[in-house]
Structure formats: C-alpha cells, structure tokens
C-alpha cells in the first residue's frame, strides 16, 4: 500500500513534468499544425543556457530562468520564421515541414553537444528538502514540479480564456479559415504560440536542471514525451495534453510496481500503442 502511494506520488510529479512539456508542444502543434520536433533541442538549449548563466556567470537562479525563457522564446520564434514559415507559405505538404523540423532537431542537438560537451551539466550545490507525507517521501523538487505545472497550466488557461491574443489563438486552433475571415493575423498568432510554447519548455527545462542537470539526450525525450502526451490526450486541447502527460507519468510509475525502472519508456510506448489502436483521435476528442 505504501509502495503504491509512493509510486502514485512519483507518477504525479513526473506526470506534471510531462504535462508541462505537453501543453507547450500541444499549443504549437494544435494552433499551427506544425510538428515542432526542434521543441526538444530548444528545451535542451535553454537548460544549457540557464546552467551557463548560473555556473559560469554566477547569476541567481530566478534571473537565469527568466533569461532562459526569453532565450527559448526567441529561439522558437526564429525556428518558425526561418525554417517553417517559408515552407508553409509555399504550400509544402505537412510531411516536408515535419522532415525540416527533424533536420533542425539534429542540427541543434549536435551543435549543443559540440558547444557544451557530452557530459552532464549539473548545478553546483543546489540543495532541496525532503518531506514526509505519512509514509510517502517526496523531495522539494517533486513538489515544485507539481506546483509549477499547476501554476503554468492555470496561467495559460486564463490567458487563452481572457486575453485578446488568447482568444485569437483559440480561434485559430478551432478554425484557421474562419480566424482569417474575422480579421485575425494568423502569422502573428503563430509567432505568439511559438514564443509561449518555447517559454513553457524553458520552465520545464529549469525543473530538469534542478532535478538532474542537462545532458545530451534530454532534448529528444522532452519532445518525445510531449508528443505522446498530446496525441494521447487529443490534439488541439490544452486540457488533453495536460491529462495525457499526467496519465503517462502515472502509468509509467505504477508500472514500476512490478517492473524494474529502466522499462519506463517501454510502458509509455505500450500505452500509446493501445490508445492509438483503440481511439485514434486521442482520449478527449472522440468521434
């Protein structure tokens, strides 16, 4: 019983991280229809940048996070303007845009490895507390991960619901043609979602930096988990991406009950495979 509660707590914490990655990726994918694979390396790049700001320049953590978010936003928007937009404008099939994003993915990922080396970069003397909830042990980072996800999710929902840009984003997600017809500048909306989505990934990157540091493969797994969260939850729904991510975390962690930890992504894959066969449009968007 204790074990189950512990696994549940771990699942919610990890799931929050996946959900956070998922809403950022899902915002971009749902609004623009672009499978932004380079989301992963942008996430990784911002982790490295934050690490550099803290370890080499000695900036305080919060300042580094804000700068890291700004960096990610700029990087994401640049990717859209330089790589994706010209292809989309030309009317390229989505396959072409997808391959271009894979190209960008390996360019950034390998450049990062050249610049920062392939060893893991961890923050120097960053300590966090350990808490006991009954018999369940949680770390401060785990709690922070859940709180950060909730804060970002709520802020994003509020922004989408009440802001002018938020309503424009929802309009484009719902029906691009109609959005254009009522006079929404769809290009600006794309730029905004690339900025916001990338900023969200930078927040997730800060979580990871604190928990285990930055290393070469974090980019791929970030976009992989984000993509799965979005597809499982249903494309075009922020709530879906959040639920998909949490579900992924929970399934993965309850799987640990009987299986050794290294089989985590195996379980994630199986969940995905079953969901795809059972409900190709995701869990939330039926019919």
């Amino acid at each position: 019983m204790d074990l189950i509660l512990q696994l549940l707590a771990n699942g919610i914490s990890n799931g929050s991280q996946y959900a956070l990655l998922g809403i950022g990726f899902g915002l971009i994918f749902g609004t623009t229809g672009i499978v932004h694979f380079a989301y992963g390396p942008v996430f990784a790049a911002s982790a490295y940048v934050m690490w550099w700001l803290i370890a080499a320049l000695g900036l305080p953590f919060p300042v580094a996070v804000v700068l890291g978010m700004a960096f990610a936003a700029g990087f994401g928007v640049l990717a859209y303007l330089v790589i994706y937009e010209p292809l989309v404008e030309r009317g390229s099939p989505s396959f072409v845009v997808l391959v271009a994003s894979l190209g960008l993915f390996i360019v950034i990922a390998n450049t990062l490895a050249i610049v920062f080396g392939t060893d893991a970069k961890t923050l120097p003397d960053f300590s966090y507390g350990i808490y006991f909830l009954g018999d369940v042990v949680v770390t401060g980072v785990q709690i922070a991960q859940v709180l950060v996800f909730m804060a970002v999710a709520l802020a994003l929902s509020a922004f989408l619901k009440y802001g002018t840009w938020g309503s424009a984003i929802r309009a484009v997600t719902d029906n691009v043609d109609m959005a254009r017809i009522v006079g929404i500048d769809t290009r600006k909306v794309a730029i905004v979602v690339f900025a916001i989505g990338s900023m969200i990934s930078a927040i997730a990157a800060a979580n990871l930096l604190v928990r285990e540091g930055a290393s070469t493969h974090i980019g791929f797994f970030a976009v992989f988990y984000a993509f799965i969260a979005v597809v499982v939850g249903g494309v075009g729904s922020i709530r879906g991406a959040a639920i998909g991510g949490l579900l992924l975390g929970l399934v993965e962690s309850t799987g640990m009950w009987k299986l050794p930890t290294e089989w985590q992504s195996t379980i994630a894959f199986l969940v995905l495979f079953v969901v795809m066969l059972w409900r190709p449009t995701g869990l939330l968007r039926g019919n």
Partner: protein
Amino acid sequence: MDYFYHVLVMFCLYAILATSFNVVIGLAGLFALSHAAFYAIGAYTTAILTTAYGVPVFVAMAIGVVLTAAVGAVAALPALRVGGHYLVVVTLALQVIVIDILRNAQGLTGGPDGISGIPRIVLFGQSLSTPGSFLVLAAIVATAIYFALRLLAVSPFGRALRAMRENELAVQSVGKNVVALKLIAFALSAGTAAIAGSLLAHYIAFVSPQSFSIDETILVLAMIILGGTGNLFGAVVGAFILVLLPEILKFLDLPVGTADLMRNAFYGLMLIVILRFRPEGLFPERYRYTLPAEAEQAAGAFQLTPLANFENGAVTLAGENLHKNFGGIVAANGIDIELRAGLVTGLIGPNGAGKTTAFNLLTGFLTPTSGTITLRGRPITDRRPHRIVHSGVARSFQDLKLFRRMSVLDNVLVAFPNQFGDKLHNVYFRPGAVAAQERANIARALEILEFVGLRERASQEADGLSYAEEKLLVIARLLATEAEVLLLDEPLSGLDPNTLARVLPIVRRLAAQGRTVCLIEHNLDVIREVCDVAAYLDGGRVLTIGRPEELMKDPQLLERYIQ
C-alpha cells in the same frame, strides 16, 4: 586501401537502408520513423543467435529478416487506422522501445556494451574478415536488393503503392486492398533493413545500441530526401553522397567525438537546405515514361468486354431501406433504390439530399446503420470497398480523386482487375506472366484513353491535365475496372459542350452493352438526354422514381428541385 573499402561497404549498407526506407516513405507515402529499429533487430537477431546459440550464420540472418518483417507488420497496425502525425509518433515510440530493450535486456543483448565476437561470414572457405573481401558480398547483396526493389517499384504492386500514396479512397475504389498494401510495404521494408543490419553485425563483428539511434533513421531519411523521395536510384545516390561527404571531415584535425557530432549536424543542415531549395531531391520521381512500341501497335479500337449473362432491365444493384446516422445527423433516411442492367439511372435532388451518401453506402465506403444492399440478389452489405469492386460495382468521386503524381496511363492501368503483378510473389516468381499481362493491359489502357480522347496525354503527369481532361480520365479509370455496375458522381458537371458531347455517348454506349449505370447530375437537360430512369432524392431518401419526362412534369417536384 582498407579504409577506402570500408567506406564503400558502409555505402552499400546505407544504400540498402535508403532504398528499403524509400519503399515505405516515397512509394507508399507512409511516414514512419522506425527504420533504424528494424536495422537493429536484424543486426541483433543474428548476433544473438550466432554467439549465444551457435546457429549457423546464414540461418541466423534469415531468421533475423523474417522476425524483423513480422515486427514491421506489427508496426503497421496503427497505420491501418491512423495516418500522418499519429503514425510518426507511434513509429518513433517503436524506435525508442527497441533501443530501450537493447540497452536494458542485459542478459540477451549485452546492454549498452552490446555484443562482440560475432562470427565472420565464411563464403567458399574464405572468411570475409577484411573490408576488401566483405565489400564483394555487400556490393552483390546491395545490387540484388536494388534491382529487386526496382522491379517492385515498376510492377503493378508498386503502382498500387504509389496510387495509395496519392489517394487512399480512390485506390480502394479501383479494387485495391489498402490493409494488405500497407502491411506488405512495412514488412518488406523492415525485412530488407534487417538484411543490412545482419550484414553489419557480421562485418564489424560487434553490435551496440549506439549504432541504431533515431539519428540513424534521420540520416537514412536525409539520404532519401537528398536523392529524391519515390526514386530508388535517387536513394542510392543520396546514400553515396552522405556516406562519402562527411569522410572529408576525417582530414581535418578534430577529436573523434566532435567529428561525429559535426557530421550529424551537417546531415540536419543538408535536410533543411534541400527541402527549402529542391524539395523533390536531386533525382525527382519520374511520372512520365516512354510507351513501349509494341503496346502502341497492339492498341486497337476500344470494345467493352461483353458480359456473360446479362438480361436487359434485370435488377443488379439494390439498396433497401438504407439508413445512415453520423452522431445526430441523418445522412440517409431509408433510401430504397434499384439499379437495372442496360439502363442509365439519374439521381437528382438538392445539395445535402443524400445522393453521394447513397453512393458511399452502395459501394462500401460507408456502412449503413441499417438496411441491406444486394448485388444480383446476393447480400453485399458488409463488404469492404475493394471487395465490392471485385464483385463488379465501381464508382467515381465528385472531387475526382485522381492519382495526381502519376502518369495518365498509370491512372488507368492501376484500375484493371485481376492483375498478376498486384501479388508480390508473382512479381518475383512469374515475371514473364506479369510482363505479358502488363503489355496487354497497356494496349488496352491506350484503347480506353483513345476512346475518351486522352490518348496523346497517356505518358504525361495527371496533375497537368485541364479540368475537362481530368473528368475524362476519371471515366477512363472507371472503364478500366471492367465493372458491370458503374456509379458516377457528377461526371458531367462543369463540362463544356464539346466535352459533354464526347461523354454522353460513352454513357449511353455503356448502357447499351448491358452495364448498369447510375449518375448524379444537376442539369435537367442532361438528365433528360442521357437517363432512362430518374430518382429524386431529398432529406436522405428517394421521393420519386420514374422516367425523366414524367418526373419533370410533376410541378410539385420541379418546384422543390428548382428551389
């Protein structure tokens, strides 16, 4: 010199990977990202079997190929239901899982350290332990695979794959089984990748998970994009360039790790540049081709194949009390319709009346919520579309659904029934029969194109036709199915008087020779001219059916229709 041979061996292996990946990506248009995983399964299967169980090398390689093909077929399962981005994420997950298993199943795969001491291949008493000796084998295998896949690409099977890439619904409407096409394409592509994998294992006598990461899949993808998607020769050239070019980095004085990273970054950059400036690749897929002279000579005047037993006026295809609901929307509300041999039936009615829905139900593209469909009295209600085509019922689509990036001739050829070459085993084991039938079919296709007035367009790309020509091609494609019941969805709308004057006699002639014809049309003049029977549909059901003149005398009906 060994170094040079080594580079060439790697070129051979990547040429195998690129051509086989191109079958799925370029020919079938299925965007999967798991090719490196198939490469890995092939390599590890033979590595494990030969080192741990002492299985003879060639037996182990064969088992690896078969096993990988089976995994490829499983990977295709989601592709049967989902396409596009979903297939990408599922195959990506497969890639991750395979690498995971290689890393984690220590006992079986050696974990991150991999498996070493894999025996060399021994051929004619000689161990292929040097790059020079292995190159001979690798080159032979790569060449054989290239020609085998090329044979597939130009065969009727390959044509069906490309047609499926162009339009999945239309390819079913000419009687192809898309489930089988996808499963075979995936299995074949995976199995071929496994050949490259098993060669690699015995070549370097060592396998480890690092050789099969997602980067490897992207590298092979880059080769295809550079060479030209859908062009197998292009894939080989792409492999050649991308294997050789980064070797230049070796001459710079870089640490080994950095050189690898720079090479990968270079692949990515090249992908982006190619997509931006030459998305079709160095060797674009060719849609036109020169017609074989003997087929040109053999082509005579088009004659419809006579029907064995037809009885003018007998009911052929009938739908009884067909209902179809989508959620709350009622698309068909009890359609009753009987189509008769030798007669042209016209369906009229306002937009949204259920005319196209009726076609979709009758041809298996929609399954009715309730009601029965019979062909010559035998129920065909639950049959899948391609089976209904095989039973002799074919349809066209309002939005044409041509196979655009294929030649006009291929658009017709793909529709012929009972092609030997649709079966892969015939392509390889009865090539003579396939070729003979293909020659006859080309002659027949040219006759059909002549008949509809498109003969001189035969070797052109379908995408370049005018609107009227596209509509004529749709009719040509339908004729090629040899179906006895033909359902045409707005074949005449938007046609100029000249083209109309060409098409109307074709429709009449079909009926005169015992075909059952049903067409959807808005223009009452045309209905009067070409139809023997007209059915008026509204609100998802047939309201009246009768001779066109009588129908048009009904003031109430006219009132409703003219609205």
